[in-house]
């Protein structure tokens, strides 16, 4: 099915472990984004990518690593998870630079114990 998907939808891990959240979109959109949303708060941009092999930091990049070897995939890695990274993570994509419409995935709820 066309769209943007995230996996896993739920993840529980322990402090210090490495975790990778996957994001896949079928539209061939140029831009992709990773946000985190803490309980009761708005979304904060972690990283974004304008195209394959082009990534840049957002508002809260510390503790996260991204890559984009293919246009359709944009994985987010927590190299050494901390409790403060417990959050809901949303991936989004956007087709045109001149249009700010972003399409969001269903989110991944991550709990770090």
């Amino acid at each position, binding site marked *: 099915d066309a769209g943007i998907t995230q996996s896993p939808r739920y993840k529980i891990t322990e402090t210090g472990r490495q975790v990778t959240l996957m994001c896949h979109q079928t539209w061939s959109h140029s*831009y992709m*984004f990773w*946000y985190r949303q803490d309980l009761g*708060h*708005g*979304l*904060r*941009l972690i990283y*974004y990518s*304008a195209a394959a092999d082009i990534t*840049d*930091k*957002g*508002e809260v990049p510390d503790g996260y690593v991204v890559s984009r070897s293919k246009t359709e995939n944009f994985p987010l890695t927590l190299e050494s998870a901390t409790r403060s990274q417990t959050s809901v993570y*949303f991936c*989004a994509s*956007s087709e045109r*630079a*001149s*249009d*700010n*419409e*972003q*399409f*969001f*995935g*269903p*989110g991944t709820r991550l709990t770090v114990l």
Partner: protein
Amino acid sequence: LAKTTQPISMDSYEGQEVNITCSHNNIATNDYITWYQQFPSQGPRFIIQGYKTKVTNEVASLFIPADRKSSTLSLPRVSLSDTAVYYCLVGDIASSASKIIFGSGTRLSIRP
């Protein structure tokens, strides 16, 4: 940074028109104004976007005054299903993707 300010919450009744105003005093020349809707346990969903004056689509209208320092999202004849959090964003992905900020949004509650 084009920071936005919105009311934390609003209440209304079914069938009423709801207007949510967003303040963005530091909006830049290239910035668009975009509104999203978010239901619990879901990702945000695009509602409407504009640059100046008025924009209307099948679900909402967006009013932007000449100075562009604020904008108003208008939802006509709301229903219970419009209960959600609404976010106002200003920015331009092409020139400043890293500076697009969602903020805390406005929690809209619709009552029967």
